[in-house]
């Protein structure tokens, strides 16, 4: 299928998702490898909410429309079957919140650009929005993005979507995802004594992300 419009070239970067070989551990950082920090400081984000979900949750990054697309896409990556899926875990809400993190401005921009490219492609292929397409159509389109050449905007967006979905499914619930710890249960994070080591009730991951290490003695 001919591509009427490809993503802008600044999206054509290799996604940076790398394992650093820690002993016995995987430390993975995520973002755009070739991202150059723009010369001017990023414009401050609007503090006001951008919309609400159908369930009434306040959105910080996405419009209600964008949220619906993200919710539909993440549910195809992690569909509900005999076990809970992305929507059960509030994965899209996690992505909405995490993209507001300071330092992730370029990821925020890349994600929104990739999202509108996904929506445009759905309109072109199916004459309807991504959220209104059938699950089979959604899978077809996501597979096109996934299989796009490494370094393309489509492949970059798919990697961002997948990685953030897995963070939202399997990260600490205080970030807004992994609701009811359904992701941890699916991966058996509670079977080897690990769940007991997870942060305690009341822990606020997003706050630590903002303030971590501010304690100078």
């Amino acid at each position, binding site marked *: 299928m001919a591509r009427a419009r490809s993503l802008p070239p600044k999206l054509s970067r290799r996604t940076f998702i790398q394992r650093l070989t820690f*002993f016995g551990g995987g*430390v993975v950082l995520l973002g755009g490898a070739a991202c150059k920090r723009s010369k001017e400081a990023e414009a401050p984000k609007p503090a006001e909410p951008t919309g609400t979900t159908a369930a009434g949750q306040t959105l910080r990054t996405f419009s209600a429309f964008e949220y619906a697309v993200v919710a539909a896409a993440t549910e195809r990556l992690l569909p509900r079957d005999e076990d809970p899926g992305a929507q059960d875990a509030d994965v899209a809400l996690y992505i909405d919140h995490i993209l507001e993190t300071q330092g992730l401005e370029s990821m925020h921009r890349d994600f929104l650009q990739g999202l509108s490219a996904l929506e445009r492609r759905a309109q072109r292929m199916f004459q309807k929005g991504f959220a209104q397409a059938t699950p089979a159509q959604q899978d077809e389109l996501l597979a096109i993005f*996934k299989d796009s050449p*490494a370094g393309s905007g489509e492949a970059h967006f798919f990697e961002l979507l997948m990685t953030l979905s897995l963070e939202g499914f399997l990260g600490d619930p205080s970030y807004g995802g992994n609701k009811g710890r359904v992701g941890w249960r699916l991966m058996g994070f509670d079977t080897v004594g690990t769940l007991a080591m997870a942060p305690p009730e009341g822990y606020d991951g997003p706050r630590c*992300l903002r303030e971590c290490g501010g*304690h100078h003695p």
Partner: protein
Amino acid sequence: MSLPSVDVCIVGSGAGGAPLALELGRAGFKVVVLEKGRHYQPKDFVHDEILNSRRNFFMPLPWEEPHLVRQGAKGRYERSNAAWTANCVGGGTVHMSGFFYRLKPVDFRLRSTLGAVPGSTVADWPISYEELAPFYDKAEAELGVSGQAVPHPFAEPRSGPYPLPPLDVHPVASEIDKACAGMGWHALPTARGIISKAYKGRSPCAYCALCGSYGCETGAKSSTLASLIPNAIATGNVEVRPGCMARSIEVDRQGRAKSVVYLDKDGVAQEQPAKVIIASATAVESARLLLNSTSSRFPNGLANGNGLVGKNLLFSSFGGSRAHFRVSKQKAARPWLTDPAPFVNRSLQDFYVMPDARHGFRKGGTLGFMWAHPNPIYAAVGLAGSGKSGVFGKELKDRMRAYRDSRILEFEVYAEFLPTPGTSVTVESGVKDKYGIPVAAITLDRHPADFAATRFLVERGEEVLLRLDPDSVERVGTQGETTILQHGTCRFGDDPAASVLDKHCRAHEVPNLYVVDGSFMPTGGSVPSTLTIAANSFRVAAHLVRTLKG
């Protein structure tokens, strides 16, 4: 604007910088430690994978402070955060797993042992194992190491037992012992920089499942943050300044180091004068600091008149495999599979040096066995894969369910990383970090013998795994490098034309400049080097205290 002068200014607070700070402080010298990262407290160490492992808690973000990495001189540089260890007080020792091996006598005379190796700049050390051994004892005692020495064909001599008994291990350790013995090999207990009993006011290990890559909230991990730094500060002579990024080391008219210029936590440039200046910022970052410290006296970088700063960069050769045990299938026969004990602590060193080169190498290395890291996001990203081989949807969830039903035993290889003329670090003036400082640029040009050795060791490890009769064995790779283990770049030696530092880690060209991290090592050895870096720092500290006291 210059701050009051001190006796010693140390850049970095990890395995290289902290022992010096402690010993110099004890001896009564005024010390300032500049640390670019934060000073975490135990309460900052929570088992939150997103915070700890996926953002800039330890590692800088690659678009703020990249390293440039390329394969070969003709390769294209990629921005990466590879070859950072950690940005915090305590450095890489804070999140390490703490595999505290010693080098072996052969590692100090590899050139003599192997003879000339075409394509490699392998060199003997100017000191022997026997000269470093007392400082291994000292480092083990000060940091707190748990282990058990057993007889072995390549066992290095020790003056006595470890300061602490070995940590409790998972029952699979005795299965590995049996498998190795069945092949005539010797499974060894892996010594750990984790205290198994209360020690010097610190609480023992709580056997949590999330150890390596996390900071330890109980302080049982023998990071310099938990062990040496508090004692150094308690001397009243050592000030640790977090959030301070060293930009350059300045020299006076005589070519002596006079001060460190750094950006403080508010981004304000400060100048800290000192009688002695010590770079302890990791092999890559110390070389970067020297190369960025240009002057009319040292136009190519401080102490770099012979052009060797940044050369002979070494990492550790990496390879590994994983054995998957399906719990539902195997639990009845092997009830121990579901035992939650986190430590395996078994190593194999029967192939440390080979008698001949029939396999394409002579210097081999170490295999360390461990359970796969339980970080679930990390695991799931691996299960999803990427590109055309990547999966999503039901296939991904099926893999996640299979993962839940699995225990994954793996080994990692630490093999010799031979020095080559091409593997080096330089600075790239056109690429600056968020502080405006030119970044380190790394070129990898691996020696083929490294890959032969790593492959051989991975194959031996797989033989052990297969003897345990797992459901499957999956090879992770045979051609990697562990960039968190870094050495070279300012090798020490007796010949000023062929080395940057003398045997006391003092720059040949600058009499009051020392480099004390992994930079001094002409060869990296075939074990993780953290303990060696700390032991050498204690050795240099003893020399420096003697020298400064005159």
